[in-house]
Structure formats: structure tokens, C-alpha cells
């Protein structure tokens, strides 16, 4: 999957967790928590969705590596590698 595809998938999954968010206005570099009304439950559901979609295991320690959309994409590229679903 290319970076662009990963990014779109990440945004799609974010949409399932925070359905009312306007994903088009999301700034990739800014912390998600500062742009969206999401709490720890939403973050857990987001991590579970990433796990199911990209087949990647995300220990709690790595949560702070997923603060922004860019972080998520980089993290997934380095961790998920080829294992992600087409």
C-alpha cells in the first residue's frame, strides 16, 4: 500500500471512531486530540481498528507515536510493512 492509501485508510478509520468530525479540514501535523473531541475510549477503538485493518500490534507504550495523522502513517509504514491488507 502506498503512503497515500495508508493515509486515506487512517482517515476512514478515524471517521468510524468520530463520525461527526470533518476529516477534510484535519491538519496532518497537529495533535488529533487538539482537533477532535475524542477521549481514551475513542483512542482505544481507533487502535483496535488499526490493528484489524493493518494487522499490526500497537503496544500502549507506542500510543504517543500516534498523536497526529502523519505520525500514524509513518508508524504504519515502518511497522505494518507488507502485512497490511490490500
Amino acid at each position, binding site marked *: 500500500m502506498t503512503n497515500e492509501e495508508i493515509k486515506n485508510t487512517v482517515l476512514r478509520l478515524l471517521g468510524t471512531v468520530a*463520525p461527526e468530525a470533518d476529516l477534510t479540514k484535519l491538519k496532518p501535523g497537529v495533535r488529533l486530540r487538539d482537533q477532535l473531541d475524542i477521549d*481514551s*475510549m475513542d483512542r*482505544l*477503538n481507533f*487502535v*483496535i481498528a488499526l*490493528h484489524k485493518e493493518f494487522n499490526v500490534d500497537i503496544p500502549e507504550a507506542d500510543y504517543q507515536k500516534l498523536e497526529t495523522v502523519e505520525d500514524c502513517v509513518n508508524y504504519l509504514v515502518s511497522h505494518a510493512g507488507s502485512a497490511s491488507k490490500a
Partner: protein
Amino acid sequence: MAEFLMPHLGADMAAGTLRVWHKKPGDRVSRGDIIADVETDKADVEVEVFTSGILEKILIEPGTKVPVGTVLAIIRQEGEVIPEVSPRVSPEAPAAAAAVSAPAALALVHEEGRLRVSPVAKKLAQELGIDLASISPTGPGGRITREDVERAAQARKAAVPETAPAPADRAARIRQAIAAAMARSKREIPHYYLNTTVDFERALTWLNEENLKRPVDERLLYGILLVKAVALALREQPEFNAVWNEGQVILKPEINIGTAISLRQGGLIAPALLKADRKPLGELMKEFRDLVQRARSGSLRSSELSESTITVTSLGEQGVEGIFGIIYPPQVALVGFGRIEQRPWSVEGRIVSRPLITASLSADHRVSDGHRGGLFLNAIERLLQQPEKL
């Protein structure tokens, strides 16, 4: 070498009793010979053997009852030597369909004090924040109906003119329900407030280790430890697990923790985690996730909104330090938790840095006093020091 098994001789045969052997070790047997008699529930049946050879060894003596598939004897081919074999009992046939439990007796004993209210009336009262106990029923057999609730809503509106008519969309209606409940709580309940600081070190370390062991979709949030601690503490101080009804307190047998969940478009709803003190953390977490998902999609059942016996709210993520909450009538207490904050803390005389949480209690002074409130908060703090026991 072939095994001669206890044959399956009929649709509902699970076991058989070996009655008679017609062959003895060393005898020649050929396919179709009658080798033994077996007794089933129906009768004695002559049993044929399906493999030819020499009867090597008999493992089950006449008179023994064994399940279908048990090895009864060993048949050797010409010139074959067979090592010593112990009788092997085949696994039990798959269990028949699970026994159907008898339907409960129909004696409907009307629980004293329980209101007769139609489902739709109960749901509407919950949404409009009207206390059913305050309504005089006009339905058949003393049942409260939808009209009764609507009439009560109108009457209240007349008494409190400034509230707008019940708005159409759900968020606004919920806002109105919260407003009504909070106003009534402040009007009627003499609140007292206590708080204490909880050392959250052990809980967090245990939680991190526990989550490493769990698959991602069974991970626990720290909030669930708080809920369970409150539930277990209520066993020690039952007067906080009660409702105030027409001038007297009614202690509740079940501990149903109302968990405050913020809704997307604003507003708050506190559905109940039923029997929270009796459920393991994993199950509580699963139910909590389900409640959050259904609360935010607006598909909670009316019973879930009205069966909480106490409410817990955690505003840590919003950075709040301490909470002075308003009790949800007809409950008599509310427990709040602030944010986890690394602060200096003295342990055995030494100052160290520890993750601390402020736990606060709002309680109805008609029902309990500060002394009991303190014991309750201490119980919560103590329980959180042994997270593995939650």
C-alpha cells in the same frame, strides 16, 4: 492389527453391555461372523465382526457396560505379533442437546413499592426527566400511561414557565431532561462534598502489565478499575447504593453503576453497568464499550437509563483536577475522579513522584453523614492499592 469396537447399534444408543463372547482368543474369525452378544436398551443383539483374522485378545469381560466405540477385542492378521495393549475407552459421544430449563412459574407476585407503568410511559418519563413516583396513574389497574406522563410534563411546564416546549431533536430533548434533573437535585438534595487523593502507582503498573497480556480488543481502560473499586466499596458502605423515594431511603440490593458518557453533540447520559460488583474487569470493559457505542448512537434501552443506583464520572481527560458533582435523583451519591497527575508524595517519610488522582464524593446529607462518606472514599482508595483483586 484391527480393533473390534463396541458397535453403534441404533439411533439413540450411547453404550452397550457385553453379554457373551462366541469366540475365544486364538479362534479364526472372518468378516460377517457373529463374535459376541451385546445388550442394548432394546434387547440382546448378535454382533458381527467386519475384519477377518485371528482373535488375539479380549479386553472387556462379559457383564461390563461400556460406551459405543470402546475397544472390546484385538484381531491379529496371520503371523502378526502384537505388543501389549491396555483397553482404550473412546471419548463420550457428543453430548445431546443442552437440557432445556423449565419455564419459570407464572405466579406474578407484584413487588411491593414497584410502580405499574407502561413501557412507553416509562421511556417518555425518563427522557423528560419526570419522576414516575410523582405521577397519579389513570390507566386500568392503576397503571401509569403515556398521557399521564404528558399531563405531568404540561403541569410542570406551567409551574416553571420559562422552559421551552419539548424540542423535537434528540440532543435538545436530552439537554432539557438534564436541566430538569439538575434543577430538581439542587432544589431538593442537601449535598455535602468530600475528596481525597489516591496513589494510582500500583494500579497503573498492574494495568500496563495486564494489557500486555490481553489482545488489543480486550484491553482495559483505567476508568474500569475506578468503577470496580467504587462497586466493591459500596458493599462495605451500602447506604450510598440507594434511592430517595417519598421521604425515605430505599437501599438497593443490586449495585448498578451509572457511568457518565459525554455525547458527541454535547450533553451527558449515564447508563448503568448492571451488577458491577459481581463482574470481572474484562466483562465490565466489554459492557462499558457497548454502552458507549450505543449511547452515542442513541440506541439505549429505557431500562438501562433508569436502573443506576449510583453514578461515577471521570473528567481526568479534560484536565480537571477535582469534581464537585450534582447527584442524579433519585440516587443519593455521586463519585467523581479527576486527572492522573505526577506530583510529589511522601512514602515512608521520603518525598517521591507519584501519579495521583483526586477522588471526590457528593452525597445526600438526608441519607448519610461525612463520617460514613469518609469511610466510603477510604475504601475506594484502599481497594485501588490492590488492583489485581478488583
